[in-house]
């Protein structure tokens, strides 16, 4: 089975825009792995061209906020303290650069990309930019290639034991643009939880490449800041081995523009990959989750659970695909994308896709848009719960399936408490 790459149309406008951008991007000529990877990504980007609104993959989201030369916002986004209670080791990143020394954690090797590239540390070279490149095969993701080129720093994590204490990455910015590129390698039978909070920049672009080897576990929980003056583009590229578990959850409250892409390749038998997102969009907010999961092994399970609560003109987008390759029998694929529209001004745009080349699989997908259930609202109010609180309770109830995807109960509780506070803050 050959999957023809779905290349975008290389219009003159696209290639001119790309050439103009690349004039400002250094050519990497060093002999180290980082420079080689960046030069290769630069070449990929030059071939693909930057995204345009007419590209199929950008039909619901205008990419120009990410390709304009000047970021729209200069917002300061201070470091948040959401996971303070999580008993994690913390890595602090300000304005796109790691601050201070790397924490020590048994069973884990942690480096900054800046240091590792300079010191030519090798374990990361077969992953850095490699998963990103592989993730371009079915769908072009030029912004991810651009991030590989531009990111000067990021966290590189090599996990060789099953570690219970989470690693927490806190990002903040004084404004402006920042790019980060993280790599996590989880060895066979090892495991790690990574918590992320904050925004790398007022315009930020982040890559996260994750390799989970056989029997490994990777848990990822990410909370973006509830600040409207920011544009975020993030890519997760994951490769999940046999009997391994990959789980990622993102909470996106507001933010002018957010595009979260995830490309997950399940390559080993009996593996599990869950990706979930919860969004609270209020006002001039555009929030896009774009997911591509490939099943290329037997007896694997994948879940995509995305819930968006929208009001006052917010737009939610979901593009989710399950690709089941020939021979990937006993695949159990589940995908749900739902919006709760709290008024008539908001919209949800969804494009669920299934492409299946195996005959013994169970794949289900659903997408709905709905309002608050009047009967449930009346039931709560008839018990004395005020209208606003009742709407909040029903909103949390709507988001529960996504938040439930967080495996660690304590972390889940932290996210729920944060969500409750965000909803409370909306009452002014």
């Amino acid at each position, binding site marked *: 089975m050959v999957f023809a790459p779905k290349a975008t149309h290389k219009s003159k406008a696209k290639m001119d825009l790309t050439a103009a951008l690349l004039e400002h991007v250094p050519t990497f000529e060093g002999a180290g792995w980082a420079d080689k990877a960046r030069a290769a990504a630069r070449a990929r980007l030059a071939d693909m061209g930057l995204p345009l609104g007419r590209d199929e993959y950008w039909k619901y989201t205008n990419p120009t906020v990410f390709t304009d030369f000047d970021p729209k916002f200069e917002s300061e986004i201070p470091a948040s303290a959401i996971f303070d209670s999580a008993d994690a080791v913390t890595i602090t990143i300000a304005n796109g650069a790691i601050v201070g020394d790397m924490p020590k954690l048994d069973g884990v090797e942690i480096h900054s990309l800046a240091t590792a590239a300079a010191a030519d540390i090798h374990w990361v070279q077969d992953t850095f930019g490699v998963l990103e490149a592989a993730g371009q095969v079915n769908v072009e993701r030029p912004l991810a290639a651009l991030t590989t080129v531009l990111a000067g720093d990021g966290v590189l994590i090599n996990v060789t034991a099953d570690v219970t204490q989470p690693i927490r990455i806190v990002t903040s910015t004084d404004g402006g643009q920042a790019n980060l590129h993280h790599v996590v390698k989880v060895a066979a039978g090892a495991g790690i939880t990574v918590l992320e909070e904050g925004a790398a920049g007022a315009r930020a672009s982040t890559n996260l490449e994750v390799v989970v080897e056989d029997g490994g576990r990777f848990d990822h929980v990410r909370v973006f800041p509830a600040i409207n003056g920011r544009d975020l583009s993030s890519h997760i590229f994951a490769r999940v081995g046999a009997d391994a578990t990959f789980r990622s959850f993102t909470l996106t409250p507001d933010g002018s523009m957010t595009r979260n892409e995830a490309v997950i390749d399940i390559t080993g038998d009996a593996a599990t990959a869950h990706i979930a997102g919860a969004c609270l969009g209020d006002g001039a907010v555009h929030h896009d989750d774009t997911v591509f999961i490939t099943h290329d092994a037997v007896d694997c399970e994948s879940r995509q659970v995305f819930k968006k609560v929208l009001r006052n003109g917010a737009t939610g987008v979901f593009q989710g695909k399950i690709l089941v390759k020939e021979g990937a029998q006993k695949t159990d694929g589940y995908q749900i994308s739902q919006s709760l529209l709290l008024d008539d001004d908001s919209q949800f745009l969804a494009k669920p896709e299934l492409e299946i080349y195996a005959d013994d699989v169970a794949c289900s997908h659903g997408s709905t848009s709905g309002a608050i*259930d*009047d*009967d*449930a609202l*009346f*039931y*709560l*109010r*008839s*018990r*004395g*719960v*005020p*209208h606003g*609180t*009742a709407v909040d*309770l*029903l909103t*949390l*109830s*709507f*988001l*529960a*399936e996504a938040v439930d995807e967080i495996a660690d109960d304590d972390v889940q509780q932290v996210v729920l408490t944060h969500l409750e506070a965000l909803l409370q803050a909306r009452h002014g």
Partner: protein
Amino acid sequence: MLDIKNLHVSLEEEDKQILKGLNLTLEPGKVHAIMGPNGSGKSTLSYVLSGKDGYEVTDGSATLEGQDLLDLEPEERAAAGLFLAFQYPVEIPGVGNMTFLRTAVNAQRKIRGEEEMSAGDFLKAVREKAKSLKIDADMLKRPVNVGFSGGEKKRNEILQMAMLEPKMCILDETDSGLDVDAMKLVAQGVNALRGGDRTFLVITHYQRLLDHIKPDVVHIMADGKIIKSGGPELALEVENNGYADLLAEVA
């Protein structure tokens, strides 16, 4: 306690009149039952009193201890002491039964300007009341009414009533969908709450429930009005003869 005068109510969407001049006075501490054939407006009465959307009051009044109910939001009516046990309790996935109960108890206290119930006191009260209604810890943990049997849902209604300690309880066909044992359990729960000034309005199709919750007064409702009131013997008359004779009497 509850005073309803000349109440006229239409459906907002259909312009159809359901209640056509209903009068009802409930003295404090009494249990009143309303019986009536299908379509007589019994459930509409309970919804209008508790403030559900979709009904338009075109004439008349309803007051709770002199306070105009019809002017209040549903949550304000609840805080004023009104409670409706639903005929069909609503399932709310994702909201834990305990969270819901505590939110409701404290929300009412807040509206009344009272102090919130401490987590310890709340837990103690819930456990004690749940036990007498045979509601186990699992039911308290589960999302509100989700996956509950018909009997469990009705017991859960009574648990809410017990926790919220309302002055005026309306039970809308609480017996529907219950077997005899479940009905006894629910009735026990209700009877345990009788006493003092707490007043009940029990809406039912059948006399059977009234064997277990003994009413002081029975009203027969038809075509949006109370057509006859009497003692408990009126319920027996309906049970034996149906509504036809009573309806013919008034016609």
